[in-house]
């Protein structure tokens, strides 16, 4: 067909609308400010700003915080806020990715058994590792390995169960593997009732106040997973027309799905390893964005990262301040706000998700 007349390009990919990108960034920035300012010890806004200014080497600005306040800000609060942002962004991105890849709006990042596997790994570490090893490093590693083993098992069971095209087979395999690992984990826990409290606390999830070490530990995985998923975000839109049609559009569906699932799972396993099981973030954040912005995956995914990060930072503020000095497990906070919201989602979006 001739294209002599300059074609009017009526059709454009619906990318990230600036208004939503701005709103999500603003939400994250506000959440981080709240997260840094709110805590048992009141750090004044001006003092915090002066300290940030000093760290950023703004000429003529020096911190007006005391040495103790400095270390509360930079060694406790700031790393905790950053960690909450990384974990929240990762879980919500992984949730949105799973929902797209499996074409099921109700799946969460724990779908393929990563949570149950990580739970077993953490329980084994808490129950059997000597106290010395059980410190900060061994627990996340055990949880990560447990999560990875569970997902690999799910994938091989799902694949060998025949029709590999069928995502329902994979989801069923995930449910099966998860219940098997949960059974093992409960058994180990029953045999070691002295560690019950510790395991229980881990399972309910929390952002540890462990300084920068956990941030450094998970950052590479989260960064890698996020980069891969965001690069492939158009492919998730293509997958939404079904495996066979996506194939007829020239896509190697199995390879793309594997890449996306591996990336989402690695990121989730890293998050679970340091923070335990934080439910609902991976479902409610992507759904809230869908309802508000009504977008395809290519815009949904970056928005999920930003909004999920902000959401978990705020949830963590509630977790550590509502009953201060006690902490409410983060999983309880997210579920307390997440469950009613999710009921609303179920009632209002029967279709269109």
């Amino acid at each position, binding site marked *: *067909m001739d*294209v002599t007349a300059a*074609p*009017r*390009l*009526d*059709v*454009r*990919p*619906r990318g990230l609308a600036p208004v939503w990108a701005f709103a999500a960034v603003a939400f994250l920035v506000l959440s981080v400010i709240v997260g840094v300012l709110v805590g048992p010890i009141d750090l004044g806004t001006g003092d915090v700003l002066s300290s940030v200014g000093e760290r950023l080497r703004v000429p003529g600005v020096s911190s007006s915080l005391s040495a103790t306040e400095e270390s509360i800000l930079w060694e406790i609060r700031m790393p905790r806020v950053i960690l909450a942002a990384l974990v929240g962004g990762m879980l919500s991105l992984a949730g949105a990715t799973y929902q797209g890849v499996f074409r099921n709006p109700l799946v969460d990042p724990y779908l393929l058994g990563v949570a149950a596997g990580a739970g077993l790994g953490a329980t084994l570490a808490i129950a059997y590792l000597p106290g010395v090893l059980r410190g900060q490093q061994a627990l996340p590693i055990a949880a990560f390995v447990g999560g990875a083993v569970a997902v690999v098992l799910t994938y091989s069971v799902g694949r060998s169960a025949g029709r590999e095209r069928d995502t329902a087979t994979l989801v069923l395999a995930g449910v099966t593997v998860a219940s098997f690992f949960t059974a093992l984990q409960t058994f180990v826990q029953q045999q070691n009732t002295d560690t019950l409290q510790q395991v229980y606390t881990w399972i309910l999830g929390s952002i540890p106040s462990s300084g920068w070490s956990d941030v450094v530990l998970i950052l590479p995985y989260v960064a890698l997973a996020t980069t891969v998923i965001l*690069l*492939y975000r*158009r*492919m998730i*839109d*293509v997958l*939404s*027309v*079904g495996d*066979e*049609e996506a*194939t*007829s*559009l*020239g*896509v*190697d569906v199995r390879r*793309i799905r594997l890449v996306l699932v591996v990336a989402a799972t690695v990121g989730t396993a890293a998050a679970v390893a340091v923070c335990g099981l934080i439910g609902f973030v991976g479902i409610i954040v992507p759904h809230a964005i*869908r309802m508000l912005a*009504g977008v*395809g995956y290519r815009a949904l995914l970056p928005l999920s990262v930003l909004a999920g990060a902000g959401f978990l930072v705020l949830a963590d503020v509630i977790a550590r301040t509502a009953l201060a000095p006690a902490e409410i497990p983060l999983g309880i906070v997210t579920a307390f706000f997440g469950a009613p919201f999710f009921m609303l989602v179920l009632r209002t979006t029967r*279709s*269109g*998700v």
Partner: protein
Amino acid sequence: MTTIGLSEVTVRLGGRPVVDGIDLDVAEGEWLALIGPNGAGKTTLLRAIARLVSYSGSISLGGRDIAAMQRAELSRMLAIVPQDPLVPPWMTVGEYVLLGRTPHLGPLAKEGRRDRAAATRALERLDLRGFGERRLGTLSGGEKQRVVVARALAQEAAIVLLDEPTAALDIGHQQQALDLLDVLRAESGLTLIAAMHDLTMAAQYADRMVLLDRGRVVADGAPPDVLTEASIASYYGASIDVIPVDGRVAVIPRRTTSATQRLS
């Protein structure tokens, strides 16, 4: 000139041969209607040509074996319009038609001006100008059907396979859709293979008909040669009259017994 060549193509589903040793050559620019009773293997044959189901035998496009092609390369040569496509209700028409550009893009690429131009042209040709921002969930059945065809056109493939392209449409929209495909074929030299149930419609548009029964080709030729009272009776188990109309043929179903006859 042969553009599609099938040799001894067999597809087994659940151990049963659904397509059974088919040899078929389709010329460039031809409009071929695949007809046959339910379960004859029409859809499966289309899926084999699009390499969406595993088959034995060989299928070539322009002399090249499709089994040796990259998936994206095959999709640049051949588009398929499924009978019951999955149309995500939240997606806009523009986004959906742009999905047709996927084989022209790398897995990480974003659509550029050329892709947007191709999608815009496809929408214009299907009389869907201004539909770009509409959501698929808000379209009528006929509009949805046209959008799916637009996606296939945006793919800019020389061969388009259609599985029951008019099944969801009323008679007016059936005619519109088939007229449009005919125009596209004439303008762009498309090769069309369409599985169709409506024999009269098929006879109006197709140059050639292939009648399948139980996975085999049982008749192949111009519509008047394939659509005979005897062949329809034996393969469809239907009682019909074939009536010539302006050089084409029409199939009229004939009532075999009436209730009054049966009662008496």
